[in-house]
């Protein structure tokens, strides 16, 4: 083993054997300044203990698989650098606020249902035929929704959200941001269909202006803004004359 090592403490939990999750420590060689927490987990799995379970794929911050709590903060482990923690140990746990399937693997079925519930597709009264070509949309119109379209569904915002932690009925940051992404798209006419789902969902009014979701987002999405805008939309729905309620 090279001189420099780092201590990784990872959650172990196998529902077939364990009543409670526990932390297990592994000493991992820290041989390159470019190493990330995910590299350390991969070293454990390849060379120390093949039974450690976690999800990962792209290792470039875009597939959204490898979100975990790193020293208590929700992070993509593929861009959480060991050099920022060494020589202290790194504690890696499954994302907060989710049921745990195994070790570092969370159950995100709840989000998958919520994603579908907000109808995340273009809704139009009349679909444009393919032969008519593209909808005209300027880059400025794309800028209206661009940041909300950058969500990689990594679940860090849910792990950081105090409201979701207390009430899992809350639609939550990412799903609200994605609803906003479609509502702001100049090609879309589905606001009226989505608003009841997003505005009347439990929890949206409990969302304080804490904005932890926006702080932890690795892609610069601001779900807190989406939630506040949604509240405003909902309020406007009741104060605007009938014809303008879209």
């Amino acid at each position, binding site marked *: 083993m090279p001189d420099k090592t780092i201590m990784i403490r990872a959650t172990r939990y*196998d*529902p*077939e*054997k364990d009543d409670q999750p526990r932390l297990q420590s592994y000493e991992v060689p820290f041989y*390159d300044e*470019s190493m990330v927490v995910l590299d350390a987990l991969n070293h454990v*799995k*390849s*060379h120390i*203990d*093949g*039974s450690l*379970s*976690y*999800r*990962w*794929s*792209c*290792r*470039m*911050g*875009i*597939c*959204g*698989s490898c979100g975990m709590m790193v020293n208590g903060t929700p992070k993509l482990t593929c*861009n959480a650098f060991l050099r920022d923690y060494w020589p202290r140990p790194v504690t890696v746990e499954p994302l907060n606020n989710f049921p745990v*399937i*195994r*070790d570092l*693997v969370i159950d*995100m079925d709840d989000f*998958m249902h919520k*994603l*579908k519930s907000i*109808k*995340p*597709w*273009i809704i139009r009264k009349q*679909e*444009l035929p*393919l032969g008519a*070509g*593209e*909808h*005209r*949309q*300027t*880059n400025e119109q*794309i800028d209206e*929704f*661009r940041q909300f*379209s*950058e969500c*990689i*569904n990594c679940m860090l915002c849910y792990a950081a959200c105090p409201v979701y932690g207390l009430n899992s009925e809350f639609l939550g940051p990412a799903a609200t941001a*994605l609803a906003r992404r*479609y509502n702001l*798209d100049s*090609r*879309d006419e589905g606001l009226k269909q989505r608003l009841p789902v997003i505005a009347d969902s439990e929890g949206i009014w409990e969302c304080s202006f804490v904005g932890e979701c926006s702080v932890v987002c690795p892609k610069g999405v601001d779900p807190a803004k989406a939630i506040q805008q949604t509240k405003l939309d909902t309020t406007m729905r009741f104060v605007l004359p009938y014809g303008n309620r879209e």
Partner: protein
Amino acid sequence: MDFETYDVLVVGGGLAGIRAAIAAVEANPRVRVGMVSKVYPMRSHTVSAEGGAAAAIGPGDSYETHAFDTIKGSDYLADQDVVEAFVREAPVEVIQMEHWGCPWSRNPDGSIAVRPFGGMTTWRTCFAADKTGFHMLHAVFQTSLKYPQITRHDEAFVTKLLVEDSRCIGVVALDIRTGRFDAITAKSVILATGGLGRVYAFTTNGNICTGDGMSLAYRAGAGLKDMEMVQFHPTGLPFTGILITEAVRGEGGYLLNNQGERFLKRYVPNKMELGPRDIISRAMITEFEEGRGFDGPHGKYMHLDVRHLGEKMIDRKLPFMRELGREFVGIDIVKDPIPVRPVQHYMMGGVDANISGETEILGLYAAGECANVGLNGGNRLGSNSLSECLVFGAAAGRAAAHYASSAKAVTANPVDAMLWDEARRVESEYLEKKGGAERIGPIREEMQREMDAGAGVFRNKEGLSRLARNLGGLRERFEKVKVDDSSRTFNTEIVAALELDFMLEVSSVIAFSALAREESRGAHARTDFPERHDDRFLKHTVAFHTNTLAPRLDYRDVKITHFQPQARTY
């Protein structure tokens, strides 16, 4: 025993797979479609595609030039009828993606914008900034949620294709969360499992790109075509292999050696940075060998320089590159050159399939990177693969739905026995095995090192023979592998073992196919046979499974329509 049954079953949830699923439903709304993916669909490796999707929609563009560029880029190994059909469908598919919400970057008048790309003679690459694959995948996945006919099986790993009387009737899949083996039957099955980059150590590909569909089809008796044709992208970040998009050069970035020289003037003088990937990767390795690379802690590299483009343009068109530079290299590409070197990126080879995605096995289809429909030949042009996923995903979906509409239903009788046999095989080979001193990780790492060394940018007989031999040794060690994890719940080690089994299989096919092609064509550069030999090798290699590691190799003529092979210079 109960099992799920569908009309069409799609294996893989990336761009080709989801496009196929939607096409099947739109072709026939009564068709029930299942989609099995080993990850949630939005994690599929399409998500990492950056630069764009090619389609002849720009002013002054034509089908003919897109076809010719693709065929020349393929070093004449593409089937020209397939290319001609592809270039006609690609613009339709790009518009379809637009209607499904893909945020394509636009011209000032609101139409879809195009950018230059390598090997293309005109601007024809549609893009969503530099996260095109991400935006396309999320758009198509989210759109797929509106079809009640599509049922997903997320995080299920297909271990075997069910084939009866030469007809594919479904799959056996391991439900990763519960450890249960399920038979999922269907009248037709579409493989859309992506590439195999993880057989190499230095690759842009994500951890999930392990050649599953290719190996499944090969073992079921289908051919694997042109497996010697492996693409190395010129610009990967040293150490991680993270992709720096070709769009960086498309937008005007320079490739510089340690003399500060745009060295491509010696290799592709008319194209410079917009030459095709195979030639630029070879040029970089040659420069390294002649002492004109930079030396870094992770080997030799070149500079990719965009500083002259300015911050505003970089933020508009290459924001993800700036983010990757900042986060993974600690540089600001507005102020610093990007260190890059050639990296495994894409597999031209794949499951032998025709223009409709049909394989040699009745009821079995393939699309996307796991397939070889004859589009890419010896070298794929950048931005043709996202379009390929759309065009041939849709074609396979329609063909599979059509076949399913008339095919007879799958009967339960043989399926039960096949499921039982397959579950017993996996359990006895991995879960219940006592003893066995070998571990998965070290075997995988050694395979990856061997592939980098033997089947890289340049190959020769000696290296490929050694590779084939050493892969045989690794296969023997793999037989003695011991899995630490005995749990049924989310056992990622057994998934890794199954993936390694597949990777060793396809690696051998690459080695033997490459050994037999005694010429240089496209990405297959033999130092011992530096010339292209159309008389012997204007042919597809088709590899079939045998009882040994060496496949039986067959050769098939390339389809030529309008473009006679010429010397390939740029």
